[in-house]
Every structure is written in structure tokens, then in C-alpha cells.
């Protein structure tokens, strides 16, 4: 297969088109802007629909309308823009509408800056909008994985009738790497629920408005069951040098790439360390931790936030071993030597964790 050298953001857009996405609604925001620009150029060439919306809010509701009409549809933005979309994400989830939403994170809170960050983990995985709902959240750590996960994301969205978020940062969006576009899987999807005009069938109605508490509970229980099923089926993670590991790093996305360097160096120095890299942030890869609980002496989470995923790691380690944490924030990436120093201080000198 042909190899291309592409920017992460452009690879995302191309992968979406190859996955059969023919509708894109978006609003420009750095550092995700190459996605909307690529879509503006390419959608016309492939007979798709590109529309620059008047706002992030309008864009997500255009996604809603097109998805409800049975189409594969995507939007992309960056943190503050994703905040504006939260109402729509809640509505997409409530109405079980499939869509792919890309967040190329920028720093916050507020307007923030453009440096690499992972500060939107809570927003993405804990339901940034109102109500009890979940997004399937995929966290690539390379340009290649961005294209693979976009394609998988469209399938997951269609299979589970649920919005899927790709959570990446400005480094992944802006850097160039070689990439191969895999042949998208052909899956059979029934979209007989879509509003296409009630011609020879019963009316299709896509709404989430309901004033009867009993019906409200029934819907909530139904969604809860669906999310349990996703949790059971779709946990993904990568293991790196885990075979004999005594100490385990946990990191995703850009942080995980840096941690791999730290793991290599620590191993050279005789430490039995490994890495668990969550690929699905929701569902969190709980299954990765179950076999470790009796043998791992300590964990260390590395994030570019004040500590968000570390809460899920602690929940799953459940006190079986100490969990140390290292982070840089505000657009600064952690360096391998800093991670190594923190590891040594935590686990070799009996120091703080």
C-alpha cells in the first residue's frame, strides 16, 4: 500500500473521506484548522457536502440533522470550540445519532493557548454536556493511528449509534509522519431509523423531549445498558514491555510517546518497567489492570494536565499499589529525564509519590 507523508490533521480529514464520510460541518479554530481546510478542498472533489457553519453550536446541530438523515458526518474543533458543542453532544447521545467529533486540544481554561495539552480528558470522558451519557473516546498517539481510529470511529459510531470523539493534541495534529490508509472495513449498517420521509413506512421521529418520569427512567436504563455493552466490548489499549514489568506507567497520546522513551532508558538502567497506553479513554481499559493487581509494585501516570486520567487509574488499581503522578501543563510537554527522575524519587528512594 502507498505510503504518504502527511500532517496529522490532514490525515484525519483524508481518512474520514476514505471511510465514506461525505458531510462535514465545521468552524475554524487553531490548532485543528487544517481539517476544515482539507475538507473544503476535498469534499467538492468527491461529491460531498462541506459547509462552514456560523458557529461551533450550529456546526454540531448540522451534524445532528445530517446524521439523523442517515449520513456519515464529521466535525472537528479545538477545546474551547468543543465546549460550545457540548449541548449538541448531549443531544446526539440522547437521540443515539452516530457522528465523529475530533478535538485537537488546545490549552485552557478559558481561551488558553495553542501548545500541546491533555486537559480535556474529563470533558471528553465524563460527559461534558448535561445528563447521563457517554461518548466513545479514542486517543491516537501517531498520525498513522489517527487515520486508523477515524475509520474505526465511524464504524463504532454506526454500530452503537453513538457519537465518537477523537481526542488528540496540537502536536499530533500538526506533525508530519508517514501514513498508510488501510482499506476501510465494509460493515452492514441498518439506518432504517433515519428521517428520510415516511414513504411506505411508519413515521420516524428523532427527539429526546419527554415529560413522563416513567418513560424517562426507561430511556435512561436503556442507555445505561448500551453503555455497559460498549464497556464490555470495546476497551482498547497497547502494552509496552509489560511481560515482566514490576512498575507500570500509564499514559495516552503524546504523553505515551514520551513515556516510551523513558521506559527504554529505565530498562537500560535495570528497571523492570512497562507501559499501558489506553487507546479508548472511554471505555477506560479496566481490563488491562485486572491481571496486574497482584504483581505490580507501583504505577506512575504521566499526563499533560493537573491530573485527570490518574483518577481512573487509581479507581482501577483500587489501592493495590501506589500510584505516582507526573505532569507538565499549559502547553509544555514532559521530558523523559523529568519522568525518570520522578520515577526514581517515587520508587527507589522511598520518596514522595
Amino acid at each position, binding site marked *: 500500500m502507498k505510503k504518504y507523508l502527511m500532517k496529522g490533521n490532514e490525515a484525519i480529514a483524508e481518512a474520514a473521506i476514505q471511510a465514506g464520510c461525505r458531510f462535514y460541518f465545521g468552524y475554524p479554530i487553531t490548532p485543528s484548522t487544517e481539517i476544515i481546510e482539507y475538507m473544503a478542498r476535498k469534499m467538492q472533489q468527491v461529491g460531498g457536502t462541506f459547509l462552514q457553519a456560523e458557529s461551533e453550536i450550529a456546526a454540531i446541530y448540522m451534524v445532528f440533522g445530517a446524521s439523523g438523515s442517515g449520513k456519515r458526518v464529521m466535525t472537528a474543533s479545538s477545546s474551547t470550540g468543543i465546549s460550545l458543542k457540548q449541548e449538541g453532544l448531549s443531544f446526539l447521545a440522547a437521540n443515539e445519532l452516530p457522528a465523529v467529533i475530533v478535538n485537537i486540544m488546545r490549552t485552557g481554561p478559558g481561551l488558553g493557548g495553542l501548545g500541546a495539552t491533555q486537559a480535556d480528558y474529563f470533558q471528553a470522558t465524563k460527559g461534558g454536556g448535561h445528563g447521563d451519557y457517554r461518548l466513545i473516546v479514542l486517543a491516537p498517539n501517531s498520525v498513522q493511528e489517527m487515520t486508523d481510529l477515524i475509520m474505526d470511529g465511524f464504524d463504532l459510531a454506526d454500530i452503537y449509534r453513538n457519537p465518537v470523539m477523537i481526542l488528540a493534541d496540537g502536536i499530533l495534529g500538526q506533525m508530519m509522519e508517514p501514513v498508510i490508509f488501510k482499506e476501510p472495513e465494509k460493515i452492514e449498517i441498518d439506518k432504517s431509523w433515519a428521517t428520510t*420521509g415516511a414513504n411506505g413506512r411508519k413515521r420516524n*421521529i428523532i427527539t429526546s423531549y419527554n415529560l413522563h418520569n416513567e418513560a424517562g427512567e426507561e430511556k435512561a436504563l436503556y442507555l445505561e445498558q448500551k453503555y455497559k455493552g460498549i464497556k464490555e466490548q470495546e476497551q482498547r489499549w497497547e502494552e509496552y514491555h509489560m511481560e515482566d514489568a514490576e512498575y507500570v506507567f500509564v499514559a495516552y497520546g503524546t504523553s505515551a510517546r514520551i513515556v516510551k522513551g523513558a521506559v527504554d532508558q529505565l530498562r537500560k538502567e535495570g528497571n523492570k518497567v512497562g507501559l499501558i497506553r489506553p487507546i479508548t479513554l472511554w471505555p477506560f481499559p479496566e481490563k488491562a489492570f485486572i491481571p496486574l493487581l497482584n504483581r505490580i509494585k507501583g504505577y506512575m501516570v504521566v499526563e499533560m494536565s493537573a491530573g485527570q486520567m490518574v483518577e481512573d487509574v487509581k479507581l482501577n488499581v483500587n489501592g493495590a499499589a501506589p500510584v505516582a503522578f507526573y505532569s507538565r501543563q499549559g502547553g509544555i510537554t514532559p521530558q523523559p529525564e523529568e519522568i525518570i527522575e520522578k520515577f526514581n524519587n517515587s520508587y527507589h528512594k522511598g520518596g514522595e509519590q
Partner: protein
Amino acid sequence: MGETIFSKTKGLTNTPFHYCPGCTHGIIHRILAEVLEELAILQDTIGVAPVGCAGFIEKYINVDFQGGAHGRAPAVATGIKRALPDKVVFTYQGDGDMASIGTAEAIHAAARGEKFTTIFVNNGIYGMTGGQMAPTSLIGQKTSTSPYGRDSSQSGYPLDFPLLISQIPGAAYVASVSVDTPQNVIKAKKAIKKAFEIQMKGIGFTMVSVLSTCPTNWGMSPIQSIKWLQENMKNYYKLGELKTPEMLNQ
């Protein structure tokens, strides 16, 4: 057996309306449903419900429906129409939904000349939440959030939304009507029909604004409400065809 000279339109389902006595949503629903039947487009139409009193419109109008959040109907309708350009799409929105929280979505759908139809129902108040001031409430009008009457120094002036939309180049047809008399109901129906016909020709954005009453939250009887509409709202809001496709070429 006598000859059937009237029957309920197939455009309405058999679900009874939940609207208050004297509310004109019922009239507007019926003429909209009749238009969809007369144009033989019930099977090709997708409606978009608002948030507000008409938030359950999908129970009554016999077509496919989507319902998004408060004020977002024009964006949802844009997504539907772009996805299904051969279908007929409409939004049905109140004055709070469209002229307040959804102003951006409405103006830009019109600016892009999106080929769907909006039925805008203006009763000058938030009905569903129990009678708060709307952007369309008249000066002096008492509501639960303007208990001393709307004061322009505090809350500005009522927005004539169809007049505003009519100034936008992408708007192909904008009519402002009222359903306060049988004659005006017939006029309103004609305007709605014309809007859908223009949509189907693909000329641009179409909108029919309908002055409406809210006896419950105005604190009046249905008859008093109609009178109040005639004596007050009709003096402020410009009625008639505010924009027609012919004006696009002038």
C-alpha cells in the same frame, strides 16, 4: 349516506393537541398540515420541532421529525436539507426559540439561502415556561420577568424578526400573517403554501411569521386575547408579504 363535504386532513395525526384553550397553535398546525397534504408532500417532508410550547409538534403533524435543542432548529434543518436535497424540510419555532436563543442559527440559515421553510409563531411571550418576557414582548407588556411592564430603557425594543429576515439576500420569501379572523386564516394558509412551493423550486430561504395569542400567560380570555392582538401586536409588527422571489431580481 350523505356526501362527505369535509374531513380532517391526513396531515394531522389523531393525537389530541395539548395546547391551552384559545391558543392559536392549533389553527396554525391545521393549516400547515392541510398545505402539506394539498401539495402531496407528507411522505417527502421532514419537520424540525422547536423547544417551547410546540416542542411536541411531532405528535401532531403526520411527517418524519427531528427535534434538537432550543433555537437550533435552523441548523438541524440545514443538516437535513443538505443531506436530502430532494426532500421538503421545515422548522416550526416560537419567538423565544427563533428570535432570542436561536437568532444566529436563523439569520445564517437565511443568509445561506437554505432551502427550507420556517413557520415562526409570535405570541410575544414565553409560553412553555409560564409567561416570561420575550424579545417580541411589546413595550409596557407585563410578564413574569417584566412585572412592571417592558421598559425600553431596561430591556430594549421588540424585535420584528420577519422584517429583519426579509432584508437578507438569501431569504426568497418572507410573509407576516395573523390568524385572528377567518379571512386572515385563509391568507395565512396561502402564505404557508406559497412558502413551501418556493422551497420546492429551490429559490432560497422561506419564512412565514404568524401572530399568535397566549390567553393563559396573557391572563385573558381567548376573545380578549384576539382583541389584544388586533389592537396592539398588529400595530407594531409589519404584516404582509415582506419579501417575494420577484424582489430578488430588483
